[in-house]
């Protein structure tokens, strides 16, 4: 009987297009919007790209042979140049290129360098930093020469010497990428939307909530068996929805959420159970029509998604900074932070803590549900 009910509930859940829209199609739509817009933010605001710069050397100026050479030789890394240098024959040409946004700025070199920009930004800052450094080193050499003329012969050899002043000690498992906060919160929202499924299943086993439940309650099937088979079917459907979303993120949108597949699957399952148990509890505790229950679930899900950074990553950061306990106390943040731990930390402590909390809360919610639902009798329906 258990598997028969399970089978029919499964078919019914798969055919429930209305609920599936919110638990599957809507997250996929949001993921598409995120995927179209957010990865580009990373490349245009975070990743360094070679800066286009123009140079005009005045004809009557004998020129510093090292300046343009240094400008061209400057490197961001072994394979990436700091600047792409274009030399112009006249200032007008350089100004035209600046106005057409072909270059971020240009330098007019006479006895000193004068920079021309049309706006303030990162590229202009990098250009200015380079020229500042050049001017400062020149000024320092003059200063040293005035005090210790003999030392000047050593300058060239000093500049030939390559000194690495810094070394990276980054200990994260993968590259930091705050854009992932949006995708984690989307997964969290999908898990919490499982609440719709949980609420619906409770409605189908409480005789005063639906005619199907009334019919099922007079059948000789124990309530626990009815409850168990319903929840199992709905968990399977919801878990599949979350897996489809994750697969869409990874394989279609090419979002890197980590390579530890087993842990991702486990976290998705725990999040799914948390969402369903929350919805089921709302379905059992709240007295009133389906509309009120759905309104409560949707309001909570949206508030929790907002707190976990779905609309703005900085909201999650601000919330967790104000009340550090919210990292784990808010279900949306708890789910999102568990996925974050999988991606970012070599140490699995945070992941296990998140998993234990999600599973623990789900068990407590199901236990309360069982206590509420058992031996319910209806004098009048």
């Amino acid at each position, binding site marked *: 009987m258990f598997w028969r009910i399970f089978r029919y509930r499964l078919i019914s859940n798969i055919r429930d297009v*209305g609920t599936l*829209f*919110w638990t599957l199609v*809507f997250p996929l*739509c*949001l993921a598409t*919007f*995120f995927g*179209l*817009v*957010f990865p*580009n933010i990373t490349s*245009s605001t975070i*990743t*360094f790209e070679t800066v286009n710069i123009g140079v005009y050397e005045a004809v009557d100026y004998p020129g510093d042979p090292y300046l343009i050479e240094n400008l061209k030789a400057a490197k*961001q890394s072994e394979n*990436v140049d700091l600047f792409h240098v274009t030399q112009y024959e006249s200032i007008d040409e350089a100004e035209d290129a600046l106005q057409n946004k072909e270059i971020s700025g240009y330098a007019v070199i006479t006895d*000193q*360098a*004068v*920079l021309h*920009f*049309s*706006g*303030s930004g*990162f590229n*202009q800052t990098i250009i*200015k*930093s380079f*020229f*500042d*450094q*050049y001017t*400062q*080193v020149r*000024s*320092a050499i003059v*200063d*040293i020469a005035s005090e*210790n003329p003999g*030392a000047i012969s050593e*300058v060239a050899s*000093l500049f030939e010497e390559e*000194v*690495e*002043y*810094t*070394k*990276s000690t*980054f*200990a*994260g498992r993968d590259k*930091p*990428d*705050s854009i992932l906060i949006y995708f984690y919160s989307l997964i969290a929202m999908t898990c919490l939307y499982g609440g719709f499924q949980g609420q619906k299943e409770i409605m189908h086993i409480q005789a005063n909530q639906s005619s199907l439940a009334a019919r099922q309650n007079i059948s000789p099937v124990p309530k626990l068996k009815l409850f168990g088979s319903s929840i199992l079917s709905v968990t399977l459907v919801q878990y599949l929805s979350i897996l489809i979303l994750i697969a869409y993120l990874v394989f279609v949108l090419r979002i890197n959420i980590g390579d530890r597949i087993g842990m991702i699957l486990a976290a998705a399952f725990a999040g799914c159970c948390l969402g369903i148990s929350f919805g089921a509890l709302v379905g059992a505790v709240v007295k009133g029509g389906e509309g009120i229950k759905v309104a409560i679930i949707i309001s909570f899900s949206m508030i929790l998604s907002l707190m976990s950074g779905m609309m*703005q*990553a900085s*909201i999650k*950061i601000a919330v967790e900074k104000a009340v550090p306990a919210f990292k784990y106390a808010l279900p949306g943040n708890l789910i999102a932070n568990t996925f*974050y731990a999988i991606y970012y930390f070599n140490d699995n402590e945070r992941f296990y803590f998140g998993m234990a909390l999600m599973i623990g809360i789900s068990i407590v919610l199901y236990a309360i549900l069982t206590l509420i639902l058992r031996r319910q009798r209806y004098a009048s329906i």
Partner: protein
Amino acid sequence: MQVFKVIIKTIRKNFHVLSIYLIVFVGFMVLMSSVQSSGGSSMFSEVKRTVMIINHDSGNVIADEFADFMKRASIPIDPVETEEEMLDALFNEEADYILIIPEGFSADFLSGSYSNALEQQSIAGSRSAVWTDMKIRKYMDLLRLYTKLSDVDVNDSEAIRALTEKVEKQMNTETVVIYPVGVKKQGNEFTAMYFKFMGYSLMAVTILGIGFILKIFNGRDFRNRLRCSPEKTSNVNIQLVIGSLCFAAVAWLVLILIAITFSYFEGIKPWIWLTVVNSFVFMLSTLCMSVVLGLVVKGENARSAVANVVALGSSFLGGIFVPQEFQSEIVRKIAGFLPAFWFVKAIDEIQGLSSFTWNNIRPIMMYMLIQLIFGVAFICVAMAVSRERSRRTV
């Protein structure tokens, strides 16, 4: 005025749903606008990055002076203690760069071995890493130059301090920058951000509200009842248009009044009235789009779903949530088919206006005209759908 009264009745009946949407959206918009807004500047200003400086070699002149220099050159962030907190700070972009001065760094630097290097944590290849590395190199190169070429006793802290002071003096030498007068670095003012987010709210509420109205008027029984009434079809249609327009205009007015209130506190700028006109044009085009959706989409759940997907989709692609400058070329091309894209483009253009000459205003007028053309196109589609429906049997 029977038809108009039905529209008012429908809106009143669903007022609680629409007002929840409106209140939640306004709260959401205020939150988003305040988080994203930032001031502008009319001077060239260096883009600074957030750097967390942890000095394990404090008490030594070189380490202390260098740490002070980095604090002045960047936006310093309070140091944290654990490795985990450092990783969190990097991921959440609270710190763009974490710089750790190891114990014994000063002595190692003065000895000239440079084996005890500064430790850093950052996103490899990021703009922040490039910027901060440049700052560090700048300071260290000069300090190395002075320590190598000056006869300084490495144990004489006063002499070393004199060297760091010289470095500091050189660091104040700056290249001359010519920055055109009148150019204003575009900041995201609160009111401008609010106007953008208002587009989302306006779309969601209008699609839902018009959906409620059209649900009644497209009902089979109601339509048949109307057909056999003595009211002329043209009269019915005019009342329907006026009723829908009134509803959309009231929703727009509520949002505008909130915007004006905020801008009053921020200081009303002359460009705000042009933004109000732009939002009115957007309201008209959204109203026309809502009519098409209201005619095509049936069912309570489907309407809510479509309202969310269309409003969110247009907002993401159109540049309401994410600035258009960050969008890829392909996304921008796709978004060009959405009125929201031109609505945002007009706001950006209005915000960057330096003077109200016809040449400056012309592109804004073009963007508004494009929104109106979208509206006309939607009305044509709505008329075609409606005509097709009217041919069906009773």
